């Protein structure tokens, strides 16, 4: 925290008298004040001539410190907040919605991981057009690879509407497309600036309304972090973690769902794993793995991490020209099939034993 003398401008009570008093006790910054025994300091302040002002100064510094952290909440308040604010945004693809029990949850950071051309950008575009179309709110799309395609978004929006009335459709299309704003960011510092600006804007117009931001998409966060990760210093690592925390803070405080994409790298034994390493693994709330058949149009989504579900369910969806439609329903992984089979055999065996012993 800042040295005490730099706080003087904002809080005139921390004047030079206060500073020299603190300096006499070896306190030069707010950190030093925290480490010091406050009762002892107050006792010393009593003995000084301007004891009232000094005690007010100490109280002021303590209130500055208090203002730095989030307010304490109890369970009831958290539950009310979750029920009132943290609803679920449909992604527009039934398969993914089914998998996520509704869709993207507001207040959580969802990550899409997958190899190249597995459909990550398509899911992002579909989610953006769906949220904008259902007038749920506006969408902010941060694009690092020039992959935001307005034509594709138009296709997604116009797929279900009546092709008859052209003029009205044109106007609704314009209204919906105006809800999606897209910015190209090409390095992590620009992204920090954009996110801080967004935070400032959201904080200053808390009343909501029609243009309230509901969905923030960053496509992709890995291409911004990879040039700085690794190497000699840990600066890149620190930037990546602070970016993750900033996204989660935005999501929680301003009731936004955040969707980011990540790519895969080769891991041990040739199995691909998500990029950005072990530290990034704990940052997203929900991690989904996308994979696509080579040359096919069937894509597979599975859960890698979820706060309330087991990572065993997978869902298949087809990517075609118009939309991402559900092709097959939930398929249980083979391990569970084997387990079920095993239980059935065990049951039959015990039955057999029972009857054979009963006959005796």
């Amino acid at each position, binding site marked *: 925290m800042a040295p005490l003398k730099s706080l003087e401008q904002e809080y005139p009570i921390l004047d030079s008298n206060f500073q020299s008093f603190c300096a006499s006790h070896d306190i030069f910054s707010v950190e030093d004040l925290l480490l010091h025994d406050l009762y002892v300091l107050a006792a010393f302040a009593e003995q000084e001539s301007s004891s009232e002002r000094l005690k007010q100064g100490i109280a002021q510094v303590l209130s500055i410190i208090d203002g730095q952290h989030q307010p304490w909440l109890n369970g009831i308040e958290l539950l009310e907040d979750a029920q009132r604010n943290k609803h679920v945004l449909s992604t527009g693809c039934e398969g993914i919605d089914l998998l996520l029990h509704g869709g993207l949850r507001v207040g959580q950071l969802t990550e899409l991981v997958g190899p190249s*051309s597995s459909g990550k950008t398509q899911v992002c575009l579909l989610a953006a057009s769906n949220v904008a179309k259902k007038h749920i709110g*506006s969408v902010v799309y941060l694009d690092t690879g020039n992959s935001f395609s307005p034509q594709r978004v138009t296709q997604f929006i116009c797929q279900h509407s009546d092709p008859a009335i052209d003029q009205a459709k044109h106007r609704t299309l314009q209204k919906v497309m105006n809800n999606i704003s897209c910015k190209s960011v090409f390095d992590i510092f620009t992204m920090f600036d954009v996110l801080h600006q967004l935070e400032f804007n959201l904080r200053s117009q808390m009343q909501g309304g029609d243009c309230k931001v509901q969905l923030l998409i960053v496509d992709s966060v890995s291409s911004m972090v990879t040039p700085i990760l690794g190497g000699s210093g840990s600066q890149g690592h620190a930037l990546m973690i602070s970016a993750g925390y900033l996204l989660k803070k935005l999501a929680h405080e301003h009731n936004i769902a955040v969707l980011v994409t990540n790519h895969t790298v080769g891991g041990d034994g040739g199995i691909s794993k998500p990029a950005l390493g072990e530290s990034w693994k704990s940052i997203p709330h929900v991690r989904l793995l996308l994979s696509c058949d080579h040359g096919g149009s069937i894509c597979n989504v599975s859960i890698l991490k979820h706060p309330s579900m087991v990572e065993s369910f997978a869902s298949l969806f087809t990517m075609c020209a118009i939309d991402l439609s559900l092709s097959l329903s939930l398929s249980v992984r083979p391990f569970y099939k084997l387990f079920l089979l095993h239980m059935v055999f065990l049951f039959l065996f015990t039955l057999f034993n029972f009857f054979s012993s009963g006959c005796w």
Partner: protein
Amino acid sequence: MEVGRLPISASQRSKLIAAGYTTLSSFSSLSPSHLARDLKISDNEAAEIMRVASHSHRLDGSAGGCGTVNGAQTAWDMLHEEEMFPRITTSCEDLDNILGGGINCKEVTEIGGVPGIGKTQLGIQLAINVQIPVDYGGLGGKAIYIDTEGSFMVERALQIAEACIEDMSECGGLLRKDSQACQLKMHPNNILENIFYFRVCSYTEQIALINYLDKFISEHKDVKIVIVDSVTFHFRQDFDDMALRTRLLSGMALKLMKLAKDFSLAVVLLNQVTTKYIDGSFQLTLALGDSWSHSCTNRVILYWNGNERYAYIDKSPSLRSASAPYSVTSKGIRNSASNCKRIKMM
């Protein structure tokens, strides 16, 4: 910590944090000399840090639109902007059809294939086609050709340029039989003059050149395509530190994306292939690994199918996966001469 997001060097940042300045407001009111004394750095460095901090601080306070960020465009505006930029034709109708008209500006397209499939030919063809005048449906721009392998042949470029002019005058003759004003004044030498050729011999030269392209293109504003042939060549051999290679490549990819977006030009990267062990068999994939495969907007793979050359769209945000045949003739890239002209949709 707020100072973590300032674009300053790591040593300056650690000195700031060690002196107790962790938020921007804590030192924004200080004078540069005061800061210099606290951090034990020169006055110039301190002034630089204050300038960067005040810039960030100013960005925070400026009001955007309703909940949007500064500099963001709405999707509606982008849709109309897209229609304004014509695409660069490849002179092969089938290929243009699957590409939605041609190579798109503002995007990075990666074209990869086995040796001898025609990547350099396609690169030279694009460098010439970008110069087609606006009257004939082209962009009328110049081209930058970055050659890393030494495979650019000037005689071949001259040949393709002459064929292109012939085609244009034929078209012009058919469409505008009467007007003299539209008579083609282009000479093959003019076309060759508008191709800026750079030869790079090592990866440091390549990275330095891409950093310099920003300045070069601001001076030559009518450059509309940058072709790198091939982008992987210098990164495949003699690289001991793979992590460094990944960082350099992703940094280079971001810079190329930024170039494409800021100057509204097309970037075409030609890539080589390598074999990869997937699902129990060896398959051909593009070189430079998984991280590089995310660094392009579109990807086209060229391959042999029997005796025919085919192009396949592997990755695109808005185009359907499809493949189309093409051929390399003495005039450049042209339609395949086979009987079956239907595009095979995947």
